[in-house]
């Protein structure tokens, strides 16, 4: 077994075509996909190979018979993250594409599309409640401008920014899957060679900005406690 190499998952797993292309390019550079997580992707170092990758969204775990038929057609399961199953095939040995009917593939996204829609509705309600609480707290204070100069205000501001980013991510994922489903139902197949570089760069910049912000929201209360005389948060 070759050495395992970790890379940051700078793009969303929902960007199917982009990730498939990235995994294929990594395989050409001798890094073969092994495992995928929310933040990191694990590759095994080996020889350069032309490999096709397909990210399939399957509601229920595929049966052994299904995996055997996939194998007979040149496709093997690599890993999965929740409903996202990743299959790979050697470009020379692959006898058939995994999906040959975009409309049918579009139907398979109905479940995920529905789940993401519910997530977005729940998140919107939570955001409304969150902003309501934040706003009322600010209004109920006797000296709001004085409050702005103190530590808790900075922390609350950072929490708002972090929450807005989470909300944006949930909304973006829903829009991506909805548009993908729509385009598949119109008969347009997924572009397995979609450019990933720009999206990974943007993802990297956003992660570089928001991760320190999220960490700051955790550390500010501790700084406040150490600075206060009675060692409790007020």
């Amino acid at each position, binding site marked *: 077994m070759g050495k395992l190499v970790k890379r940051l998952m700078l793009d969303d797993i929902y960007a199917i075509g982009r990730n498939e292309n990235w995994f294929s390019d990594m395989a050409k550079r001798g890094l073969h996909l092994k495992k995928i997580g929310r933040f990191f992707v694990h590759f095994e170092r080996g020889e350069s190979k032309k490999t096709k990758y397909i990210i399939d969204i399957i509601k229920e775990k595929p049966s052994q018979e299904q995996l055997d038929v996939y194998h007979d057609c040149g496709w093997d399961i690599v890993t999965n993250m929740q409903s996202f199953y990743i299959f790979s095939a050697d470009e020379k040995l692959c006898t058939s594409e995994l999906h040959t*009917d975009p409309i049918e593939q579009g139907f398979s996204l109905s479940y995920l599309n529905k789940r993401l829609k519910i997530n977005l509705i729940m998140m919107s309600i939570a955001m409304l409640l969150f902003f309501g609480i934040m706003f009322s707290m600010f209004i109920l204070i006797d000296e709001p401008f004085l409050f702005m100069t103190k530590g808790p205000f900075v922390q609350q501001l950072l929490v708002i920014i972090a929450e807005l980013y989470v909300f944006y991510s949930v909304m973006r994922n829903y829009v991506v899957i909805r548009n993908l489903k729509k385009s598949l139902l119109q008969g347009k197949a997924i572009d397995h060679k979609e450019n990933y570089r720009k999206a990974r760069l943007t993802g990297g910049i956003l992660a570089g900005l928001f991760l320190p912000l999220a960490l700051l929201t955790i550390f500010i209360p501790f700084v406040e406690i150490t600075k206060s005389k009675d060692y409790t948060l007020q």
Partner: protein
Amino acid sequence: MAALFVLTKKYRHDSIMLCDISRGIILKAGWKMSYTSSPMTEAMYYILLALMNPNHGYQLMAAIEQVSNGRIKMGPGTLYGVLTRLQKDEMIVILNDDGRRKTYAITEDGRTALNVEYKRLKDMIQDGVILEERS
């Protein structure tokens, strides 16, 4: 004529909708299955057609290629996606499952849906005769 409304499950979208059967929106009144007037996909049509003879996964792919005279080479992902959906819609059933291999067969509902689709396609071909007359 008074409109007669029934509740049915809309094919492909898993949503409940109200249909006016007096206007012929539903293909068959009292049909418990979810298939309505939407046209079938090519993959669905050929899988149902190939399942007129009970079959299992890999052989089914070969049967589809055979029944379509080599025109359709179905991918395994498409095949299993359609099989799962057809099973859910009760258009096919598993006849035998020995743990390694499942044998699928078409149901009466599946056969009816296939016949309706066949009639629709035949009507379309007949309507298209005008093209041959003008060429």
